[in-house]
């Protein structure tokens, strides 16, 4: 089994797989280590599939805008898999004046960095999506947003990277990193020791513990997120949906089913039994949320529910880039539940960073050491 490479990536989620793919395209030799038995077993397979710019913090907007412009449109052809990418816009819905304020502020901020997003009233919302109830009084509308299939996209990156010679090893849980002559080179797992000239930590929530072994700490915690899917329905609409209240989000898939995600508000205080499992309260709560917006869906049958951990940082945006004080070490973690849509751009830029030392899109605002105490 191969144990040394130019780049060792810790984490076989969409970030790790995409970075491995773009590195392989640049001719790099890569090993990807995945702790669980399956590729893409964390947030990569458990998210709601949004490929969104609107509603994001301005610090991560340049990256996601780059991906939507340059990478997403041709991704299915490139990965030889149907990523089911739809670019039919995102409606972020509001039901109260307070919601209108929140949405207007987000839209103003995004326009400030060049994103086409504007506020529309209830009637215009229903012209775009006639199934929405009269409770919706406004929305932010971003026509270049969309959605895709996280499962086929993640596994598509894996398939192509593997085909190009990247070594993937699953069931290989990393316990620590090791420094040799000032460079991070060693990756110690429960079973083996690997070595790379560069090491990328993209292990979601587990990144924190792995980075701690070389004295780096990124303030992040876990937060449970739950999703559900209906049986296939006749085609209704193609937009990605979210709400100002964040009570649910989702879309109709190519298959016809609706995938909706949401929360009960109790996520941070859920019992952590070491498993990612659904709470009995959340899916019914998501259903109640959905039916207020889409009364027509009340008879749609739920066939499956699932849960996943979000790696939440204290300021809501990820840490991406090189660790200055430890040459050879790179991080990409704390995506806060919106890592899917941004992942192609992150992988693409990280591959550039690791290969050339610089990126097309500045990662400065997403530095791992930006966290400061409040006073």
């Amino acid at each position, binding site marked *: 089994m191969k144990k040394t490479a130019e780049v060792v990536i810790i984490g076989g989620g969409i970030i790790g797989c995409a970075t491995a793919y773009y590195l392989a395209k640049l001719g790099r030799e890569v090993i990807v280590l995945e702790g669980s038995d399956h590729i893409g077993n964390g947030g990569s397979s458990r998210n709601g599939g949004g490929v969104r710019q609107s509603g994001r913090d301005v610090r991560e907007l340049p990256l996601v805008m780059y991906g939507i412009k340059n990478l997403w449109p041709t991704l299915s052809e490139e990965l030889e898999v149907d990523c089911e990418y739809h670019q039919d816009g995102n409606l972020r819905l509001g039901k109260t004046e307070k919601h209108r304020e929140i949405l207007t502020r987000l839209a103003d901020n995004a326009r400030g960095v060049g994103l086409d997003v504007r506020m529309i009233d209830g009637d215009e919302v229903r012209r775009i999506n006639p199934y929405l109830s009269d409770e919706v009084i406004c929305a932010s509308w971003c026509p270049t947003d969309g959605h895709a299939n996280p499962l086929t996209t993640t*596994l598509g990156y894996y398939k192509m990277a593997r085909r190009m010679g990247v070594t993937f090893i699953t069931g*290989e849980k990393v316990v620590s990193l090791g420094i040799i002559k000032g460079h991070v080179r060693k990756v110690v797992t429960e079973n083996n020791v690997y070595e790379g000239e560069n090491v990328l930590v993209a292990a979601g929530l587990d990144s924190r513990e792995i980075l701690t072994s070389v004295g780096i700490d990124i303030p992040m915690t876990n937060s449970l997120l739950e999703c559900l899917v209906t049986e296939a329905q006749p085609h209704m609409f193609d937009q990605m949906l979210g709400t100002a209240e964040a009570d649910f989000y989702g879309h109709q898939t190519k298959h016809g089913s609706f995938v909706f995600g949401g929360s009960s508000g109790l996520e941070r205080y859920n019992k952590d039994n070491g498993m990612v499992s659904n709470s009995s309260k959340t899916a019914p709560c998501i259903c109640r949320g959905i039916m207020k917006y889409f009364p027509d869906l009340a*008879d749609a049958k739920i066939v499956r529910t699932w849960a996943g951990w979000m790696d939440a940082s204290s300021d809501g945006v990820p840490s991406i880039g090189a660790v200055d004080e430890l040459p050879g070490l790179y991080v990409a973690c704390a995506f806060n539940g919106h890592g899917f849509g941004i992942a192609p751009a992150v992988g693409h830029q990280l591959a550039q960073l690791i290969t050339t030392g610089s990126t097309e899109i500045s990662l400065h605002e997403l530095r791992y050491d930006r966290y400061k105490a409040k006073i």
Partner: protein
Amino acid sequence: MNTVNDRSRDIGPFVPMDDDDMLICRCEEITKGEIRRAVHDGMWTLTEIRRYLRTGMGLCQGQTCSRLVKGIVARELGVSPAELEPATSRVPMRPIEMRVFANEMTEDKEADAV
């Protein structure tokens, strides 16, 4: 149960078979050939096969085809079916209408209104 699994291990080439057109997952209409090809694309666990192809994600949630899929994947990998862990079963047991699922708190006023 985590087992070190090097996905570069040689499992031989994909060899077409006469019955590759046979439907295995009836709900999602996935054929034996598609499942075998997915294994050669690197999908080595039943969870990955399911996420990649949608086998067992239809109305029956895999209650019909999961054993067949397991046998096909095991044969392609050259391992015993017993070594392959089934994909996770998910709530609910049977498809439930949203308006019913939403009513988990029947004594709650808000739920009554739904």
